[in-house]
């Protein structure tokens, strides 16, 4: 998937992946896509909750080798 910006949240625990995602999105423009890579298994539910509550669509999420990759579109 194409993306405009990447956030490396590897090694970070709650709430850092979410807070850093919010900060990264704040620097982007509408319809741009942010790729977030996390190693925190808690971020799977949290990222979905973040997307739902903020209205920034979570386009996809995948897991590979203990890493979670999310694509969030800025609303």
């Amino acid at each position, binding site marked *: 998937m194409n993306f405009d910006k990447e956030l490396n949240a590897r090694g970070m625990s*709650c709430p850092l992946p979410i*807070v850093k995602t*919010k900060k990264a999105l704040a620097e982007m423009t509408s319809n741009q896509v942010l790729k977030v890579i996390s190693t925190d298994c808690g971020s799977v539910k949290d990222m979905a909750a973040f997307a739902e509550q903020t209205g920034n669509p979570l386009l996809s999420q995948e897991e590979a080798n203990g890493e979670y990759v999310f694509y969030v579109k800025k609303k």
Partner: protein
Amino acid sequence: MATKKMAIIATKGTLDMAYPPFILGSTAAALGYDVQIFFTFYGLQLLRKDLSSVMISPLANPAMPMPVPMPVMVQMLPGMESMATMMMKQKLKKHGVASLEELRNLCLEADVKFIACQMTVDLFEFEKSEFIDQVEYGGAATFMGFAGDTDICLFV
């Protein structure tokens, strides 16, 4: 849709109990909430410029996981609190948990408002110069003014 609001009362000044207000405050702000944290009694310690005196004690804290079981008589010894604090900070770092300073800064960056309880500041004879500059001062009525209109209101 109106902006959601969250208010937290932070009354504890130990390392473990310092985390919930800052974690929930920074997260709620990231989710678009308007957040205020009211610091009173021992919670005021979390507003100090220097947070190095915020500690955790194994004493009277039987739920704290310890690497080896430790009798209360040993927990009382001088230096045990510093040691427990050092070990907890190492553990937090190893697991990628942000430091209190970092979480507090994330709150401030996200415009989380910090209110210090004027009565307890006076009670403990704290100087305002001991606290970070972003603190505002107020009383119970100030808190109610914001809390009365919130979606989430917590006492920590």
